[in-house]
């Protein structure tokens, strides 16, 4: 909670810092702001608080989610390099402020106790993303992506709101625990059946949220938007937005509607399978690294939803671990992609395709190595964090007695093999293809972040119990 207030204030102060006309000060200031927010977040550790008439609830689970969100934001800000030094066309103060504000939205989405809070949080996050997607005004792709995202996103929010209204109609409560009670009461009165309001409400809420985490068949916006947005914001979208979206989905489904599992579980089975298949198979055919990462983010949404669906007591910690592993690896990949595509664009070559990475290892061993580790982690190779993420998710699915999960597992396993194929494409390009990437000069902070994320990925692969015990 304190992190929300602090980040809102910091966002505003960031805008004022913009008046100083000194680009260099913004990056360190924003990093410090995020660290302070992290510290305030830890103050809620081991307490269970309800804030402002049950609008928010903080407990260890929410503190963990907020930590992942803030850590991802920190990493994204750290690799932003002050958005270049083009004073005319880039506005770092505004970008950083909006990033901080969107972190506020994301935090609301993982701590909400009332559906109004979910809605406001989701809107803050979404509107920030619409703006940032279109922030590269000179690029037609960026404009198109922003418009597409805005239109589809507002439609999805409308559907979510429709669902919230219907659920309110069925249970006369906005409070997620109140809804659970309302559902139970309805069950009592109706003799085990539920009114159509609840049915349609749950489904519509779920659709609205699944749109945000780009689960199939609500994923059609993802590749274009991720591809069109500036890479740094794509990194933010595919980590923070995804973590917050999955956490919100999990929160509402597991707290408000556990007793109507059949209602949302059955459609979710098909959604998970479709997400895994579409995300992975389509990723294979991509020529652009960035677009491939977009499809990979779709497929990872599928894995995350498996454990939501499995509804085990361990789902909490599996979700946290997977999100963390995924976020770190994805940000590393984007960090490498950004500098390489920038260096290649100067030579007038193709920028975000796999070819841009050809021969990267010759002159830039650090970049190539970080890229390799992040790809291995996303693919789920042992000794990386991603492996344990998959391991926990599969264990959850395994320990669920329902026979449906065997089918889901079969698909998930086949698809993770497919995943290995496309995650190796950048590695092949970096190490085995002939090509030349001139030595890229990296700032010390950039190097530090690359080394940090790579080390974290390996460390979590060696000793997952370090964080798993906390989660």
């Amino acid at each position, binding site marked *: 909670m304190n992190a929300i207030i602090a980040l809102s204030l910091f966002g505003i102060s960031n805008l004022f810092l913009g008046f100083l006309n000194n680009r260099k000060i913004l990056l360190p200031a924003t990093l410090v702001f995020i660290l302070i927010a992290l510290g305030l977040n830890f103050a809620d550790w081991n307490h269970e608080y309800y804030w402002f008439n049950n609008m928010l609830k903080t407990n260890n689970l929410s503190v963990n989610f907020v930590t992942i969100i803030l850590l991802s934001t920190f990493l994204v800000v750290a690799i932003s390099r002050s958005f270049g030094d083009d004073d005319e066309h880039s506005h770092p103060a505004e970008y950083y402020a909006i990033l901080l504000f969107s972190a506020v939205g994301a935090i609301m989405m993982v701590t909400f106790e009332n559906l109004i809070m979910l809605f406001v949080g989701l809107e803050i996050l979404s509107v920030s993303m619409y*703006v940032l997607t279109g922030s590269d*005004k*000179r690029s037609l792709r960026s404009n198109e992506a922003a418009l597409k995202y805005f239109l589809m996103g507002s439609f999805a929010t409308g559907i979510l709101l429709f669902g919230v209204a219907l659920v309110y*109609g069925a249970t006369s409560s906005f409070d997620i625990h109140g809804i659970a009670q309302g559902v139970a009461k309805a069950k009592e009165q109706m003799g085990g059946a539920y009114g*159509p309001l609840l049915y*349609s409400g749950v489904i519509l809420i779920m659709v609205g949220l699944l749109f945000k985490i780009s689960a199939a068949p609500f994923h059609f916006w993802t590749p274009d938007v991720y591809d069109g947005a500036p890479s740094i914001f794509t990194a933010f979208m595919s980590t923070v937005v995804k973590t917050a979206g999955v956490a919100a989905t999990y929160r509402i489904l597991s707290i408000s509607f556990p007793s109507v599992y059949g209602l949302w579980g059955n459609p979710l089975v098909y959604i998970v399978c479709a997400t895994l298949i579409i995300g992975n198979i389509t990723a294979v055919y991509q020529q652009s690294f960035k677009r491939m990462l977009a499809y990979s983010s779709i497929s990872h949404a599928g894995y995350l939803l498996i454990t939501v669906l499995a509804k085990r007591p361990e789902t909490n910690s599996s979700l946290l671990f997977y999100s963390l592993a995924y976020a770190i690896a994805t940000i590393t990949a984007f960090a490498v992609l950004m500098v390489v595509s920038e260096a290649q664009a100067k030579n007038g070559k193709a920028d975000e395709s796999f070819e841009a990475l050809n021969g990267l290892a010759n002159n830039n061993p650090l970049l190539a190595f970080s890229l390799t580790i992040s790809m291995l982690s996303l693919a789920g190779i042992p000794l990386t964090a991603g492996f344990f993420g998959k391991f926990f998710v599969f264990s959850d699915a395994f320990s669920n007695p329902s026979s449906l999960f065997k089918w889901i597992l079969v698909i998930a396993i086949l698809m993770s093999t497919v995943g290995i194929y496309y995650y190796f494409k950048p590695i092949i390009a970096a190490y085995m293809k002939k090509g030349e990437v001139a030595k890229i000069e990296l700032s010390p902070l950039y190097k530090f972040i690359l080394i940090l994320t790579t080390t974290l990925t390996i460390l979590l692969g060696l000793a997952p119990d370090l964080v798993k015990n906390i989660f």
Partner: protein
Amino acid sequence: MNFWYFLTALTLLSASMVILSKNPIHSVLYLVFTFFCISGHYVLLNAQFLMAVNIVVYAGAIMVLFLFVIMMMDLSKNSPDSKSTLTKLAGAILGGTLLVILIAASRKVDLKDVKPIDAQTGMVEGLGQILYRDYVLPFELVSILFFVAMVGAVMLGKREAGERNF
């Protein structure tokens, strides 16, 4: 009750006209009319304050702005439809199915234990009580949302040297 049916029919009719009319100016005018109809619904629900706000803010301010924007842009030349017939057909079938399901579902809704509203429910005072006591946190945080929208609008709207696409 009969008035409610009349108003609802009018709302739906004008809402569909918004998307059916070819001329954007007509669309906006129909939209304004739709907002008026919805305000009428608010009155029926005893929410006079909401009615007033809806008319002033949406039908008044925002729609007028919309009109200005449309008038300033040259929308006289009709761009050809980019969607194929198949896409349109699929969209119509999917949307229609959703509509049928929702209508079928809501026909079965049993509203016998809905609490009757008292005379004070929709009044400014009651609204204020709820907004500034129970829902003060979301109320305050909405300001962040507006702030983001504002910053975004200024940032995207600012003129810069060089070419741009919107």
